[in-house]
């Protein structure tokens, strides 16, 4: 099935958006995601670049500062809404898992 854009988020998308709850330089995300996940999730530099462009186009993040070639970004309300939806989806999945296995 084709992945409908941002209807569900990949792990990488999820953590990038999570990093941008507070203003953050794009480049810093490359370090934050692995440290946030104990190295479980890594985001490639090309993938990060493309995702930031797509998030900007979709209005999920906005640019806050431009210092030469460095740019910082922040999650928009729409971005927060998408992130929340994903969180709810993951919670629902966790709940479903629990309801099945805790019954046993």
């Amino acid at each position, binding site marked *: 099935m084709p992945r409908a854009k941002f209807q569900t988020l990949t792990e990488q998308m999820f953590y990038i958006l999570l990093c941008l709850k507070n203003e953050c330089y794009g480049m810093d995300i490359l370090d934050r995601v692995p440290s946030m996940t104990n190295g479980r999730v890594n985001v490639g*530099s090309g993938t990060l670049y*493309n995702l930031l462009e797509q998030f900007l186009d979709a209005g999920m993040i906005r640019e806050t500062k431009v210092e030469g070639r*460095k740019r910082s970004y922040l999650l928009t309300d729409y971005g927060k809404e998408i992130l929340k939806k994903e969180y709810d989806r993951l919670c629902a999945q966790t709940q479903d898992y629990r309801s099945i296995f805790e019954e046993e």
Partner: protein
Amino acid sequence: MKDSKRTYAYFKFYDRSKMQAYLEKMAEKGWLLTQSTDLCWQFRRIEPKKLHFSVVYFPKESLFSPNISERLSRLHDFCAHTGWQLASSNAQVQFFYNEAEDPVPIETDAVLEVENIHRATKKRFLPAYAMELVLALFNLVFQLIQCTRNPVSYLSAWGTLVYLLCWGVITILSLTELTGYFLWHKRAVKTAEEENRFKEPNNHPAHMLFIIPTLFLGFTVFIADHIGQGLGLFAALATAGLLLLACVVTLFCFLGLLRLMKKCKLPSAVTRIVSPFGAAIVCFLLFFPLMGFVINCFSDAARQRAREAAVAYEYRDHTFYAYQDELPLTVSDLTETGYTEYSRVCTSSETVLLSSLTGQENPRKNALWEPSLEYQIVRVKLPFLYDLCFDTMVQNLAHNKGTPEPMPDAWIQARTTDASHWGADAAYQLFLGGEPQNRYLVCYDNAIAEIDFDWTVTAEQMKKVGETIQNLTK
């Protein structure tokens, strides 16, 4: 010891894995990529070491832009942050290397990677291959039209036949390449979406490896058969080499102009227009006069060789040449003529499809009252070509070159005549305005012959001609 070297870049545009593997092997041998174009890659000597390479596609970059865009610079910064150093940048294709043992890949999302490759391919690779396909189809259709207009001379000559086949092969190669890309893309999208894995393209070599030898073969055989007849294979190979060189020089001119204009920081719109047209003009100025010169030399040399084999004679202050080729059928075989100074010209060609023999026996200019004889004997080796050849030859018979133009069609007719004298299956005689002419088309089961006599032919002569044709086409 040289500190730099160039290699030919024979990779498919979208085959990033093969490129990466090649660059990693070169680094192990002590060569690091420093510059890349669509034709060749340049390397500098380094300490041999294990490096990781990553080929990244950046569709938004323009080939004609004088500077690296700010967007691309940002990608370079991102990559540098994770240890990926830029080795070379070629518009939509970026080459990075990393010295770390197990670096985080630049692309960690297969869906995005396939999307990027597809967008870059649409911008760079697909238009070029579509143009190649159009050119190949144009040549193929043009050659097929020539073939249907005159199948006898076309299909009996190796030059035209191989040339036609070569364009057919190039058309198939172009179609295969384009279809191959779209099939790979479809599978790559599916694999990326379902398994988040990058699907490698099939391990076929770049089709340029087939296109160049095919073109070279086509040019060589065509030239050997048409322009350089009698001058041998070497002259044809040299000319075909020049033609191919013209294509390569045009490409280098384009890349050189592109580099120069980018260095001069000219706007991308100007570079986009000037560089291809400039290259085409340079190609035209350089190679067309050169090719003209070569063709003239060949034609002069061929004429000279033909004259060397001929006897020159003077008639009314002009020099004429009488040729002395061997003919399978001569006027003296059929008549009691005592004239011996005929000019005899025989040309023959043969392929797996057809063979054609043309004979002309004409008296010298000072004896034009003596009888002359002209004929073409065609042997059809594949039965399905018989009707095509027959239709063309019957049309040729009806449109006699000697008749004044234009002629109403009803005035020129090829009427059936008694074939038994010729020992043939069918025979036709040309009639002009109801008057019978001494021009015949004689058909056997695997051969067709057109004979133009200069006298009223007798039944006995018809029989003799028929026997000769049958002996020749057994």
